[in-house]
């Protein structure tokens, strides 16, 4: 940033192109941003996976401790969010793989896909958790 010709001291102020904030939010744009945020969240979330595996490899008491944290209301909230981030990123990624073939890039189609991504990820997350609770009960 500091080396940019637009901000270097002594340079004449040059007009900058319009940036993010001048645009009205549209579904495809929001899904693009959310795809990146969920990707970053999944990155940090690998710590949860690592901690769980290490706990299982350590001892019964340590595993019960970590399992207890993950099973608390806060732990479940985080894991619910983690499930959604994974499924959302997966559906968003599928969309990108479709776009890689050069299809479904039209305005109407991509907007429909954006809505399908969010609707699909929320639905699948709820289904995964229902399945999880059914497994627990059975």
């Amino acid at each position: 940033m500091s080396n940019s010709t637009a901000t270097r001291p002594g340079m004449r102020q040059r007009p900058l192109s319009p940036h993010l904030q001048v645009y009205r939010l549209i579904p495809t744009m929001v899904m693009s941003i959310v795809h990146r945020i969920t990707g970053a969240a999944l990155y940090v979330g690998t710590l949860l996976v690592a901690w769980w595996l290490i706990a299982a490899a350590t001892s019964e008491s340590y595993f019960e401790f970590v399992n207890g944290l993950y099973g608390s209301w806060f732990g479940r909230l985080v894991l619910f969010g983690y499930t959604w981030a994974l499924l959302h990123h997966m559906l968003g990624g599928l969309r990108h793989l479709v776009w890689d073939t050069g299809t479904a890039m039209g305005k109407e189609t991509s907007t429909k896909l954006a809505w399908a991504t969010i609707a699909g990820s929320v639905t699948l997350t709820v289904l995964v958790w229902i399945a999880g609770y059914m497994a627990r009960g059975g």
Partner: protein
Amino acid sequence: MSDMRTPLAKVRGLGSAKDGTDTFWRQRLTAIANIPLLLFFVGLLIALNGAGYDEVRATLGNPFVSLVLVLVLVSGLVHMRIGMKEIIEDYIHDEGIKIALVVLNTFFAFAIGVACVFALLKIAFGG
């Protein structure tokens, strides 16, 4: 003089960074692999919900589960390392901080991978 590139460079098609479309391709390859692999992981967690220490260890120690989980880790970590590198390069403009974060990004991915694989092997070999 319209094109300064040598014929060899043109044939190789690797561009100035010398790795061509490798990163682009690897990100697609791991994306495709991640779909079945992570669905398996989600299914495993559903099945293990509410399970105790012994059951979790018996499941994780199963050779098939163990091997697939290693694939989940490798494919997932390669994919997320590329993704985070791209995020860093997009938003961090200071050259020194950028390089430091790109290095830390690689360290993080390897640390998580080595720790998880070691834990899985320890369980699998009954340690």
